[in-house]
Protein backbone atom coordinates (compact mmCIF):
# COMPACT_ATOMS: atom_id res chain seq x y z
CA UNK A 1 0.00 0.00 0.00
CA UNK A 2 0.94 3.62 -0.36
CA UNK A 3 1.66 3.88 3.34
CA UNK A 4 4.94 2.01 3.08
CA UNK A 5 5.73 3.38 -0.37
CA UNK A 6 5.50 7.00 0.72
CA UNK A 7 7.79 6.27 3.61
CA UNK A 8 5.71 8.47 5.90
CA UNK A 9 4.35 5.70 8.09
CA UNK A 10 0.79 5.49 9.40
CA UNK A 11 0.24 9.26 9.41
CA UNK A 12 0.21 9.22 5.62
CA UNK A 13 -3.17 7.41 5.71
CA UNK A 14 -5.04 10.68 6.11
CA UNK A 15 -3.26 12.65 3.38
CA UNK A 16 -4.66 13.29 -0.11
CA UNK A 17 -3.17 11.28 -2.96
CA UNK A 18 -1.72 13.53 -5.65
CA UNK A 19 -3.22 13.79 -9.13
CA UNK A 20 -6.51 14.70 -10.76
CA UNK A 21 -9.80 14.25 -8.87
CA UNK A 22 -13.30 13.25 -9.96
CA UNK A 23 -16.46 14.76 -8.50
CA UNK A 24 -19.18 12.46 -7.22
CA UNK A 25 -22.33 14.56 -7.44
CA UNK A 26 -25.81 13.72 -6.14
CA UNK A 27 -28.59 15.75 -7.76
CA UNK A 28 -31.96 16.33 -6.08
CA UNK A 29 -34.70 13.87 -7.00
CA UNK A 30 -38.08 15.45 -7.75
CA UNK A 31 -41.10 14.19 -5.86
CA UNK A 32 -42.86 13.76 -9.16
CA UNK A 33 -40.70 10.79 -10.17
CA UNK A 34 -41.94 8.77 -7.18
CA UNK A 35 -45.56 9.70 -7.90
CA UNK A 36 -45.23 8.59 -11.50
CA UNK A 37 -43.77 5.25 -10.43
CA UNK A 38 -46.72 4.72 -8.10
CA UNK A 39 -49.21 5.53 -10.86
CA UNK A 40 -47.57 3.06 -13.22
CA UNK A 41 -47.65 0.36 -10.51
CA UNK A 42 -51.35 0.90 -9.96
CA UNK A 43 -52.13 0.80 -13.68
CA UNK A 44 -50.18 -2.44 -14.11
CA UNK A 45 -51.98 -4.00 -11.12
CA UNK A 46 -55.36 -3.17 -12.66
CA UNK A 47 -54.43 -4.07 -16.19
CA UNK A 48 -52.80 -7.48 -15.68
CA UNK A 49 -55.95 -9.42 -14.61
CA UNK A 50 -57.85 -7.81 -17.47
CA UNK A 51 -55.13 -8.83 -19.91
CA UNK A 52 -55.28 -12.36 -18.52
CA UNK A 53 -59.03 -12.52 -19.24
CA UNK A 54 -58.51 -11.23 -22.79
CA UNK A 55 -55.86 -13.86 -23.52
CA UNK A 56 -58.13 -16.56 -22.08
CA UNK A 57 -61.06 -15.34 -24.19
CA UNK A 58 -59.02 -15.33 -27.40
CA UNK A 59 -57.41 -18.70 -26.67
CA UNK A 60 -60.77 -20.27 -25.95
CA UNK A 61 -62.37 -18.89 -29.10
CA UNK A 62 -59.42 -19.83 -31.30
CA UNK A 63 -59.62 -23.39 -29.99
CA UNK A 64 -56.21 -23.28 -28.32
CA UNK A 65 -58.00 -24.00 -25.03
CA UNK A 66 -60.59 -26.77 -24.92
CA UNK A 67 -63.78 -24.78 -24.29
CA UNK A 68 -65.48 -27.82 -22.76
CA UNK A 69 -63.16 -27.38 -19.73
CA UNK A 70 -62.20 -23.72 -20.10
CA UNK A 71 -65.23 -21.85 -21.45
CA UNK A 72 -64.52 -18.28 -22.56
CA UNK A 73 -64.99 -15.58 -19.87
CA UNK A 74 -67.84 -14.05 -21.86
CA UNK A 75 -69.61 -17.43 -21.79
CA UNK A 76 -69.22 -17.52 -17.99
CA UNK A 77 -70.57 -13.98 -17.71
CA UNK A 78 -73.55 -14.97 -19.84
CA UNK A 79 -74.18 -18.06 -17.68
CA UNK A 80 -73.93 -15.92 -14.55
CA UNK A 81 -76.49 -13.54 -15.94
CA UNK A 82 -78.92 -16.37 -16.66
CA UNK A 83 -78.48 -17.86 -13.17
CA UNK A 84 -78.95 -14.41 -11.67
CA UNK A 85 -82.17 -13.84 -13.61
CA UNK A 86 -83.61 -17.18 -12.62
CA UNK A 87 -82.69 -16.54 -8.96
CA UNK A 88 -80.75 -19.81 -8.75
CA UNK A 89 -77.43 -18.07 -8.06
CA UNK A 90 -78.73 -15.60 -5.48
CA UNK A 91 -80.60 -18.32 -3.58
CA UNK A 92 -77.52 -20.50 -3.31
CA UNK A 93 -75.25 -17.57 -2.39
CA UNK A 94 -77.60 -16.53 0.41
CA UNK A 95 -77.90 -20.09 1.73
CA UNK A 96 -74.10 -20.50 1.82
CA UNK A 97 -73.58 -17.07 3.38
CA UNK A 98 -76.09 -17.85 6.11
CA UNK A 99 -74.34 -21.12 6.94
CA UNK A 100 -70.91 -19.47 7.01
CA UNK A 101 -72.18 -16.60 9.17
CA UNK A 102 -73.78 -18.90 11.74
CA UNK A 103 -70.84 -21.31 11.74
CA UNK A 104 -68.38 -18.42 12.02
CA UNK A 105 -70.17 -17.05 15.08
CA UNK A 106 -70.44 -20.50 16.69
CA UNK A 107 -66.67 -20.97 16.21
CA UNK A 108 -65.27 -17.48 16.77
CA UNK A 109 -67.03 -16.63 20.04
CA UNK A 110 -65.79 -19.67 22.00
CA UNK A 111 -62.37 -19.35 20.33
CA UNK A 112 -62.07 -15.75 21.51
CA UNK A 113 -63.41 -16.48 25.00
CA UNK A 114 -61.22 -19.53 25.57
CA UNK A 115 -58.17 -17.73 24.18
CA UNK A 116 -58.66 -14.85 26.64
CA UNK A 117 -59.30 -17.14 29.62
CA UNK A 118 -56.31 -19.39 28.92
CA UNK A 119 -54.21 -16.26 28.36
CA UNK A 120 -54.61 -15.49 32.06
CA UNK A 121 -54.78 -18.92 33.59
CA UNK A 122 -51.63 -20.99 33.84
CA UNK A 123 -53.66 -23.85 35.29
CA UNK A 124 -56.18 -23.56 32.46
CA UNK A 125 -53.36 -23.75 29.91
CA UNK A 126 -51.90 -26.81 31.61
CA UNK A 127 -55.31 -28.49 31.59
CA UNK A 128 -56.62 -27.66 28.12
CA UNK A 129 -53.78 -26.64 25.82
CA UNK A 130 -52.40 -30.17 25.17
CA UNK A 131 -55.91 -31.35 24.30
CA UNK A 132 -56.53 -28.50 21.87
CA UNK A 133 -53.11 -28.95 20.31
CA UNK A 134 -53.72 -32.66 19.84
CA UNK A 135 -57.04 -32.13 18.06
CA UNK A 136 -55.81 -29.21 15.93
CA UNK A 137 -53.79 -31.15 13.28
CA UNK A 138 -56.79 -33.28 12.24
CA UNK A 139 -57.90 -31.95 8.82
CA UNK A 140 -61.33 -30.48 9.35
CA UNK A 141 -62.56 -31.68 5.95
CA UNK A 142 -61.78 -35.26 7.01
CA UNK A 143 -64.24 -34.87 9.90
CA UNK A 144 -67.07 -33.86 7.54
CA UNK A 145 -68.45 -37.40 6.97
CA UNK A 146 -68.45 -37.99 10.72
CA UNK A 147 -70.32 -34.74 11.31
CA UNK A 148 -72.84 -35.72 8.67
CA UNK A 149 -73.41 -38.94 10.60
CA UNK A 150 -73.77 -37.19 13.96
CA UNK A 151 -75.73 -34.08 12.96
CA UNK A 152 -77.55 -35.40 9.90
CA UNK A 153 -78.10 -33.95 6.48
CA UNK A 154 -79.56 -30.65 7.83
CA UNK A 155 -78.04 -27.29 8.62
CA UNK A 156 -76.33 -28.24 11.90
CA UNK A 157 -73.63 -30.37 10.25
CA UNK A 158 -72.59 -27.39 8.08
CA UNK A 159 -72.51 -24.98 11.02
CA UNK A 160 -70.38 -27.33 13.08
CA UNK A 161 -67.86 -27.96 10.30
CA UNK A 162 -67.42 -24.24 9.63
CA UNK A 163 -67.26 -23.56 13.39
CA UNK A 164 -64.48 -26.13 13.82
CA UNK A 165 -62.45 -24.44 11.10
CA UNK A 166 -62.96 -20.98 12.58
CA UNK A 167 -62.39 -21.92 16.22
CA UNK A 168 -58.73 -22.91 16.01
CA UNK A 169 -57.17 -19.87 14.30
CA UNK A 170 -59.23 -17.50 16.46
CA UNK A 171 -58.32 -19.39 19.63
CA UNK A 172 -54.59 -19.68 18.93
CA UNK A 173 -54.20 -16.08 17.80
CA UNK A 174 -56.16 -14.67 20.75
CA UNK A 175 -54.06 -16.74 23.16
CA UNK A 176 -50.82 -15.59 21.51
CA UNK A 177 -52.05 -11.97 21.56
CA UNK A 178 -52.65 -12.09 25.32
CA UNK A 179 -49.44 -13.97 26.11
CA UNK A 180 -47.29 -11.62 24.00
CA UNK A 181 -48.59 -8.46 25.70
CA UNK A 182 -45.71 -6.44 27.12
CA UNK A 183 -45.62 -6.94 30.91
CA UNK A 184 -45.29 -3.19 31.45
CA UNK A 185 -48.96 -2.66 30.52
CA UNK A 186 -50.27 -5.10 33.10
CA UNK A 187 -48.03 -3.44 35.69
CA UNK A 188 -49.42 -0.01 34.84
CA UNK A 189 -52.96 -1.41 35.15
CA UNK A 190 -52.06 -3.04 38.47
CA UNK A 191 -50.47 0.16 39.77
CA UNK A 192 -53.59 2.12 38.86
CA UNK A 193 -55.74 -0.37 40.74
CA UNK A 194 -57.55 -1.94 37.76
CA UNK A 195 -59.58 -4.98 38.80
CA UNK A 196 -59.71 -8.20 36.79
CA UNK A 197 -62.63 -7.12 34.63
CA UNK A 198 -61.18 -3.66 34.01
CA UNK A 199 -57.89 -5.27 33.10
CA UNK A 200 -59.46 -7.48 30.43
CA UNK A 201 -61.48 -4.59 29.03
CA UNK A 202 -58.75 -1.92 29.01
CA UNK A 203 -55.53 -3.90 28.50
CA UNK A 204 -55.84 -7.56 27.47
CA UNK A 205 -58.58 -7.22 24.86
CA UNK A 206 -57.34 -4.08 23.07
CA UNK A 207 -53.72 -5.22 23.39
CA UNK A 208 -54.49 -8.60 21.82
CA UNK A 209 -56.83 -7.11 19.19
CA UNK A 210 -54.32 -7.02 16.29
CA UNK A 211 -53.67 -10.74 16.78
CA UNK A 212 -57.38 -11.46 17.22
CA UNK A 213 -58.04 -9.75 13.89
CA UNK A 214 -55.45 -12.02 12.25
CA UNK A 215 -57.28 -15.00 13.74
CA UNK A 216 -60.64 -13.77 12.44
CA UNK A 217 -59.18 -13.25 8.95
CA UNK A 218 -57.81 -16.79 8.86
CA UNK A 219 -61.14 -17.98 10.25
CA UNK A 220 -63.11 -16.39 7.40
CA UNK A 221 -60.89 -18.11 4.81
CA UNK A 222 -61.24 -21.43 6.61
CA UNK A 223 -65.03 -21.00 6.82
CA UNK A 224 -65.42 -20.44 3.07
CA UNK A 225 -63.22 -23.42 2.31
CA UNK A 226 -65.16 -25.72 4.60
CA UNK A 227 -68.64 -24.60 3.54
CA UNK A 228 -67.78 -25.66 -0.01
CA UNK A 229 -66.63 -29.06 1.28
CA UNK A 230 -69.72 -29.49 3.46
CA UNK A 231 -72.09 -28.62 0.63
CA UNK A 232 -70.33 -30.86 -1.88
CA UNK A 233 -70.45 -33.96 0.30
CA UNK A 234 -73.92 -33.61 1.75
CA UNK A 235 -76.33 -30.83 0.81
CA UNK A 236 -79.07 -30.03 -1.66
CA UNK A 237 -78.47 -26.28 -1.71
CA UNK A 238 -75.68 -23.72 -1.49
CA UNK A 239 -72.76 -22.84 -3.74
CA UNK A 240 -70.91 -26.09 -3.03
CA UNK A 241 -73.98 -28.08 -4.03
CA UNK A 242 -74.40 -25.89 -7.13
CA UNK A 243 -70.86 -26.76 -8.26
CA UNK A 244 -71.26 -30.45 -7.47
CA UNK A 245 -74.62 -30.63 -9.23
CA UNK A 246 -73.19 -28.88 -12.29
CA UNK A 247 -70.42 -31.49 -12.38
CA UNK A 248 -72.96 -34.30 -12.34
CA UNK A 249 -74.88 -32.67 -15.21
CA UNK A 250 -71.65 -31.67 -16.96
CA UNK A 251 -72.66 -27.99 -16.97
CA UNK A 252 -69.12 -26.60 -16.91
CA UNK A 253 -70.32 -22.96 -17.26
CA UNK A 254 -72.34 -23.30 -14.06
CA UNK A 255 -69.35 -24.75 -12.22
CA UNK A 256 -67.37 -21.65 -13.14
CA UNK A 257 -70.22 -19.41 -12.02
CA UNK A 258 -70.09 -21.06 -8.60
CA UNK A 259 -66.30 -20.69 -8.39
CA UNK A 260 -66.41 -17.03 -9.34
CA UNK A 261 -69.17 -16.41 -6.77
CA UNK A 262 -67.06 -17.99 -3.99
CA UNK A 263 -64.04 -15.95 -5.07
CA UNK A 264 -66.05 -12.72 -4.95
CA UNK A 265 -67.49 -13.59 -1.53
CA UNK A 266 -63.94 -14.22 -0.25
CA UNK A 267 -62.73 -10.90 -1.62
CA UNK A 268 -65.65 -8.95 -0.15
CA UNK A 269 -65.16 -10.71 3.20
CA UNK A 270 -61.51 -9.64 3.31
CA UNK A 271 -62.47 -6.05 2.48
CA UNK A 272 -65.02 -6.12 5.31
CA UNK A 273 -62.32 -7.45 7.64
CA UNK A 274 -60.12 -4.48 6.66
CA UNK A 275 -62.98 -2.18 7.63
CA UNK A 276 -63.51 -4.01 10.91
CA UNK A 277 -59.81 -3.83 11.68
CA UNK A 278 -59.69 -0.08 11.14
CA UNK A 279 -62.66 0.29 13.49
CA UNK A 280 -61.32 -2.04 16.22
CA UNK A 281 -57.62 -1.16 15.99
CA UNK A 282 -57.70 2.57 15.27
CA UNK A 283 -54.27 2.93 16.89
CA UNK A 284 -52.44 0.64 14.46
CA UNK A 285 -49.78 2.26 12.29
CA UNK A 286 -51.50 1.66 8.96
Amino acid at each position, binding site marked *: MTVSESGLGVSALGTHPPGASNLLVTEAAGERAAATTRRIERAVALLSPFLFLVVWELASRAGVLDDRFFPAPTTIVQASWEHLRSGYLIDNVLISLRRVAIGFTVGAVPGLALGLVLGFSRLGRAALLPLVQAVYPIPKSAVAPLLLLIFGFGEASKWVLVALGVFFPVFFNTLAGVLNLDKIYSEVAQ*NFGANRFQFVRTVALP*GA*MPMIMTGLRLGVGMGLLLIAVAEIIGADSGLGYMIYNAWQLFQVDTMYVGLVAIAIIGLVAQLLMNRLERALVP*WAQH
Partner: protein
Amino acid sequence: MSAKPVSGSPLTGSDHNIKIAVENVTRTFTTKGGRVVTALDDVSLTVREGEFLTLVGPSGCGKTTLLRILSGLDRQTKGRTTLRRQADDKRPANAVVFQQQSAFPWLTVEQNVSYGLRMARANRKHIREQTAFWIEKSGLTAFKDSYPHQLSGGMKQRVAIARAFAYDADVLYMDEPFAALDEQTKAVLQGELLRIWEDTGKTVVYITHSLDEAATLSDRIMVMTAHPGRIKSSVSVPFARPRDVMALRKEPAYGELISSLWDQLRDEVGHAMADEAAKVKR
Protein backbone atom coordinates in the same frame (compact mmCIF):
# COMPACT_ATOMS: atom_id res chain seq x y z
CA MET B 1 -49.92 -2.95 52.77
CA SER B 2 -52.49 -3.03 55.54
CA ALA B 3 -53.57 -0.05 57.62
CA LYS B 4 -52.99 -1.48 61.08
CA PRO B 5 -51.05 0.01 63.97
CA VAL B 6 -47.40 -1.02 63.93
CA SER B 7 -44.94 -1.12 66.78
CA GLY B 8 -41.25 -0.38 66.72
CA SER B 9 -41.47 1.49 63.42
CA PRO B 10 -39.86 4.90 62.90
CA LEU B 11 -43.37 6.05 62.05
CA THR B 12 -44.68 5.41 65.56
CA GLY B 13 -42.06 7.75 67.01
CA SER B 14 -42.55 11.41 67.73
CA ASP B 15 -41.48 12.54 64.25
CA HIS B 16 -44.73 12.88 62.35
CA ASN B 17 -42.94 14.28 59.34
CA ILE B 18 -41.82 10.84 58.24
CA LYS B 19 -43.93 9.63 55.32
CA ILE B 20 -42.26 6.39 54.28
CA ALA B 21 -40.09 4.05 56.33
CA VAL B 22 -38.07 1.17 54.90
CA GLU B 23 -36.69 -1.09 57.64
CA ASN B 24 -34.10 -3.78 57.04
CA VAL B 25 -35.56 -4.70 53.68
CA THR B 26 -33.91 -7.60 51.87
CA ARG B 27 -34.96 -9.00 48.52
CA THR B 28 -33.44 -12.19 47.17
CA PHE B 29 -34.18 -13.87 43.85
CA THR B 30 -33.54 -17.49 42.96
CA THR B 31 -32.23 -17.90 39.44
CA LYS B 32 -33.23 -20.77 37.18
CA GLY B 33 -29.91 -22.42 38.00
CA GLY B 34 -30.89 -22.42 41.67
CA ARG B 35 -28.42 -19.68 42.62
CA VAL B 36 -29.69 -17.13 45.17
CA VAL B 37 -29.04 -13.51 44.17
CA THR B 38 -29.38 -10.74 46.74
CA ALA B 39 -30.76 -7.65 45.01
CA LEU B 40 -31.29 -5.65 48.19
CA ASP B 41 -29.42 -6.33 51.41
CA ASP B 42 -30.78 -4.96 54.69
CA VAL B 43 -31.79 -1.56 53.35
CA SER B 44 -33.23 1.02 55.74
CA LEU B 45 -34.26 4.57 54.98
CA THR B 46 -36.98 7.12 55.69
CA VAL B 47 -38.60 9.70 53.44
CA ARG B 48 -40.09 12.87 54.89
CA GLU B 49 -43.53 14.23 54.03
CA GLY B 50 -43.26 16.28 50.82
CA GLU B 51 -39.63 15.31 50.27
CA PHE B 52 -38.08 14.71 46.85
CA LEU B 53 -35.71 11.81 47.52
CA THR B 54 -33.47 10.41 44.80
CA LEU B 55 -31.70 7.06 44.75
CA VAL B 56 -28.52 6.91 42.66
CA GLY B 57 -26.24 3.97 42.13
CA PRO B 58 -24.64 1.75 39.53
CA SER B 59 -26.81 -0.59 37.44
CA GLY B 60 -27.78 -3.64 39.42
CA CYS B 61 -27.77 -1.89 42.80
CA GLY B 62 -31.41 -2.77 43.34
CA LYS B 63 -32.88 0.72 43.11
CA THR B 64 -35.63 -0.41 40.78
CA THR B 65 -36.30 -3.41 43.03
CA LEU B 66 -36.72 -1.07 45.99
CA LEU B 67 -39.13 1.12 44.03
CA ARG B 68 -41.14 -1.91 42.92
CA ILE B 69 -41.41 -3.05 46.53
CA LEU B 70 -42.53 0.41 47.69
CA SER B 71 -45.14 0.62 44.94
CA GLY B 72 -46.52 -2.85 45.66
CA LEU B 73 -45.45 -4.41 42.35
CA ASP B 74 -43.00 -6.67 44.23
CA ARG B 75 -42.66 -7.96 47.81
CA GLN B 76 -39.56 -7.98 50.00
CA THR B 77 -38.18 -11.28 51.30
CA LYS B 78 -37.31 -9.79 54.71
CA GLY B 79 -37.99 -6.53 56.52
CA ARG B 80 -40.84 -4.06 56.51
CA THR B 81 -42.05 -0.98 54.65
CA THR B 82 -44.51 1.50 56.12
CA LEU B 83 -46.40 4.38 54.55
CA ARG B 84 -48.10 7.02 56.70
CA ARG B 85 -51.54 7.99 55.36
CA GLN B 86 -53.84 10.68 56.67
CA ALA B 87 -56.82 8.87 58.20
CA ASP B 88 -59.29 10.75 55.98
CA ASP B 89 -57.18 10.54 52.80
CA LYS B 90 -59.29 8.93 50.08
CA ARG B 91 -56.59 9.21 47.40
CA PRO B 92 -54.77 6.15 46.09
CA ALA B 93 -51.51 5.35 47.86
CA ASN B 94 -49.05 5.69 44.97
CA ALA B 95 -48.52 6.14 41.26
CA VAL B 96 -45.48 4.94 39.29
CA VAL B 97 -43.80 6.51 36.27
CA PHE B 98 -41.81 3.77 34.54
CA GLN B 99 -38.56 3.97 32.64
CA GLN B 100 -39.84 2.18 29.54
CA GLN B 101 -42.49 3.52 27.22
CA SER B 102 -45.62 2.76 29.27
CA ALA B 103 -48.38 4.83 27.65
CA PHE B 104 -51.00 2.38 26.34
CA PRO B 105 -50.61 2.32 22.52
CA TRP B 106 -54.35 1.65 22.07
CA LEU B 107 -55.49 4.71 24.03
CA THR B 108 -55.35 8.34 22.93
CA VAL B 109 -53.34 10.82 24.99
CA GLU B 110 -56.54 11.93 26.71
CA GLN B 111 -57.62 8.35 27.49
CA ASN B 112 -54.14 7.55 28.78
CA VAL B 113 -54.05 10.54 31.12
CA SER B 114 -57.53 9.77 32.51
CA TYR B 115 -56.77 6.04 32.88
CA GLY B 116 -56.12 5.95 36.64
CA LEU B 117 -59.14 8.08 37.44
CA ARG B 118 -61.36 5.90 35.26
CA MET B 119 -60.10 2.74 36.97
CA ALA B 120 -60.87 4.38 40.33
CA ARG B 121 -64.39 5.14 39.03
CA ALA B 122 -64.13 8.84 39.89
CA ASN B 123 -67.15 10.88 38.87
CA ARG B 124 -67.21 12.02 35.26
CA LYS B 125 -66.98 15.73 35.90
CA HIS B 126 -63.92 15.22 38.10
CA ILE B 127 -62.27 13.00 35.47
CA ARG B 128 -62.93 15.55 32.73
CA GLU B 129 -61.59 18.49 34.72
CA GLN B 130 -58.52 16.71 36.07
CA THR B 131 -57.63 15.28 32.67
CA ALA B 132 -57.98 18.64 30.91
CA PHE B 133 -55.94 20.33 33.66
CA TRP B 134 -53.01 17.89 33.48
CA ILE B 135 -53.02 17.69 29.69
CA GLU B 136 -52.81 21.47 29.61
CA LYS B 137 -50.10 21.60 32.30
CA SER B 138 -48.01 19.00 30.44
CA GLY B 139 -48.28 20.87 27.15
CA LEU B 140 -50.21 18.05 25.48
CA THR B 141 -53.38 19.92 24.54
CA ALA B 142 -52.64 19.87 20.81
CA PHE B 143 -52.05 16.10 20.97
CA LYS B 144 -54.92 15.00 23.17
CA ASP B 145 -56.57 12.93 20.44
CA SER B 146 -53.30 11.46 19.13
CA TYR B 147 -52.13 7.92 19.75
CA PRO B 148 -48.71 7.35 21.37
CA HIS B 149 -47.10 6.06 18.16
CA GLN B 150 -47.70 9.50 16.65
CA LEU B 151 -45.67 11.16 19.43
CA SER B 152 -41.95 11.59 20.07
CA GLY B 153 -40.25 9.80 22.97
CA GLY B 154 -40.33 12.95 25.10
CA MET B 155 -44.06 13.43 24.45
CA LYS B 156 -44.81 9.82 25.39
CA GLN B 157 -43.00 10.25 28.69
CA ARG B 158 -44.97 13.46 29.29
CA VAL B 159 -48.13 11.40 28.86
CA ALA B 160 -46.93 8.88 31.47
CA ILE B 161 -46.07 11.68 33.90
CA ALA B 162 -49.37 13.49 33.33
CA ARG B 163 -51.17 10.16 33.88
CA ALA B 164 -49.41 9.71 37.23
CA PHE B 165 -50.11 13.27 38.39
CA ALA B 166 -53.75 13.18 37.25
CA TYR B 167 -54.28 10.05 39.39
CA ASP B 168 -53.45 12.33 42.35
CA ALA B 169 -51.85 9.60 44.47
CA ASP B 170 -50.41 10.24 47.91
CA VAL B 171 -46.84 9.35 46.83
CA LEU B 172 -45.14 9.39 43.43
CA TYR B 173 -42.51 6.83 42.43
CA MET B 174 -40.44 7.62 39.35
CA ASP B 175 -38.01 5.13 37.85
CA GLU B 176 -35.57 6.89 35.51
CA PRO B 177 -38.41 8.55 33.62
CA PHE B 178 -36.08 10.57 31.39
CA ALA B 179 -33.32 7.98 30.85
CA ALA B 180 -34.22 7.27 27.22
CA LEU B 181 -34.43 10.93 26.16
CA ASP B 182 -31.91 13.24 24.54
CA GLU B 183 -30.17 15.92 26.66
CA GLN B 184 -32.24 18.87 25.45
CA THR B 185 -35.60 17.17 25.96
CA LYS B 186 -34.39 15.90 29.32
CA ALA B 187 -33.51 19.41 30.55
CA VAL B 188 -36.88 20.79 29.44
CA LEU B 189 -38.82 17.96 31.09
CA GLN B 190 -36.79 18.25 34.31
CA GLY B 191 -37.76 21.91 34.47
CA GLU B 192 -41.42 21.00 33.89
CA LEU B 193 -41.32 18.26 36.49
CA LEU B 194 -39.87 20.67 39.07
CA ARG B 195 -42.53 23.26 38.35
CA ILE B 196 -45.39 20.75 38.54
CA TRP B 197 -44.03 19.05 41.63
CA GLU B 198 -43.44 22.32 43.48
CA ASP B 199 -47.14 23.14 42.95
CA THR B 200 -48.37 19.82 44.37
CA GLY B 201 -45.91 19.27 47.22
CA LYS B 202 -46.13 15.51 46.80
CA THR B 203 -43.66 13.09 48.32
CA VAL B 204 -41.49 11.72 45.50
CA VAL B 205 -39.03 8.83 45.41
CA TYR B 206 -36.99 9.16 42.23
CA ILE B 207 -34.45 6.87 40.61
CA THR B 208 -31.73 7.94 38.22
CA HIS B 209 -28.15 7.24 37.38
CA SER B 210 -27.62 10.79 36.19
CA LEU B 211 -25.90 12.77 38.94
CA ASP B 212 -26.92 16.03 37.22
CA GLU B 213 -30.54 14.99 37.37
CA ALA B 214 -30.25 13.97 41.03
CA ALA B 215 -28.62 17.27 42.02
CA THR B 216 -31.12 19.33 40.01
CA LEU B 217 -34.31 17.76 41.30
CA SER B 218 -33.76 16.39 44.80
CA ASP B 219 -33.97 17.51 48.39
CA ARG B 220 -31.83 14.54 49.37
CA ILE B 221 -29.79 11.97 47.44
CA MET B 222 -29.05 8.44 48.63
CA VAL B 223 -26.09 6.69 47.06
CA MET B 224 -26.42 2.93 46.72
CA THR B 225 -23.84 0.17 46.26
CA ALA B 226 -24.20 -2.82 43.97
CA HIS B 227 -24.12 -6.61 44.48
CA PRO B 228 -25.71 -6.67 46.95
CA GLY B 229 -27.65 -3.40 46.91
CA ARG B 230 -27.04 -1.38 50.08
CA ILE B 231 -27.31 2.28 51.08
CA LYS B 232 -23.87 3.88 51.14
CA SER B 233 -24.60 7.47 52.11
CA SER B 234 -27.19 10.20 52.23
CA VAL B 235 -26.45 13.68 50.88
CA SER B 236 -28.62 16.77 51.41
CA VAL B 237 -28.99 19.10 48.45
CA PRO B 238 -28.60 22.70 49.65
CA PHE B 239 -30.19 24.63 46.75
CA ALA B 240 -33.22 26.82 47.47
CA ARG B 241 -36.54 26.30 45.70
CA PRO B 242 -38.03 27.11 43.29
CA ARG B 243 -35.04 26.05 41.19
CA ASP B 244 -34.06 27.00 37.67
CA VAL B 245 -32.53 23.99 35.92
CA MET B 246 -30.11 26.04 33.80
CA ALA B 247 -29.15 28.70 36.35
CA LEU B 248 -28.40 25.97 38.89
CA ARG B 249 -25.73 24.46 36.70
CA LYS B 250 -23.69 27.66 36.76
CA GLU B 251 -23.40 27.72 40.56
CA PRO B 252 -20.04 26.63 42.06
CA ALA B 253 -21.82 24.60 44.77
CA TYR B 254 -23.48 22.56 42.02
CA GLY B 255 -20.15 21.42 40.58
CA GLU B 256 -18.89 20.58 44.08
CA LEU B 257 -21.97 18.48 44.80
CA ILE B 258 -21.63 16.55 41.55
CA SER B 259 -17.94 15.86 42.11
CA SER B 260 -18.49 14.71 45.70
CA LEU B 261 -21.27 12.38 44.53
CA TRP B 262 -19.02 11.09 41.78
CA ASP B 263 -16.26 10.38 44.33
CA GLN B 264 -18.67 8.21 46.29
CA LEU B 265 -19.98 6.46 43.24
CA ARG B 266 -16.71 5.84 41.39
CA ASP B 267 -15.63 2.91 43.54
CA GLU B 268 -19.08 1.39 43.29
CA VAL B 269 -19.17 1.61 39.52
CA GLY B 270 -15.72 0.00 39.46
CA HIS B 271 -16.92 -2.84 41.70
CA ALA B 272 -20.05 -3.30 39.63
CA MET B 273 -18.01 -3.56 36.42
CA ALA B 274 -15.60 -6.03 38.04
CA ASP B 275 -18.62 -8.13 39.10
CA GLU B 276 -19.98 -8.07 35.58
CA ALA B 277 -16.61 -9.15 34.19
CA ALA B 278 -16.41 -11.98 36.74
CA LYS B 279 -19.90 -13.10 35.70
CA VAL B 280 -18.91 -13.26 32.04
CA LYS B 281 -15.81 -15.32 32.83
CA ARG B 282 -17.86 -17.81 34.83
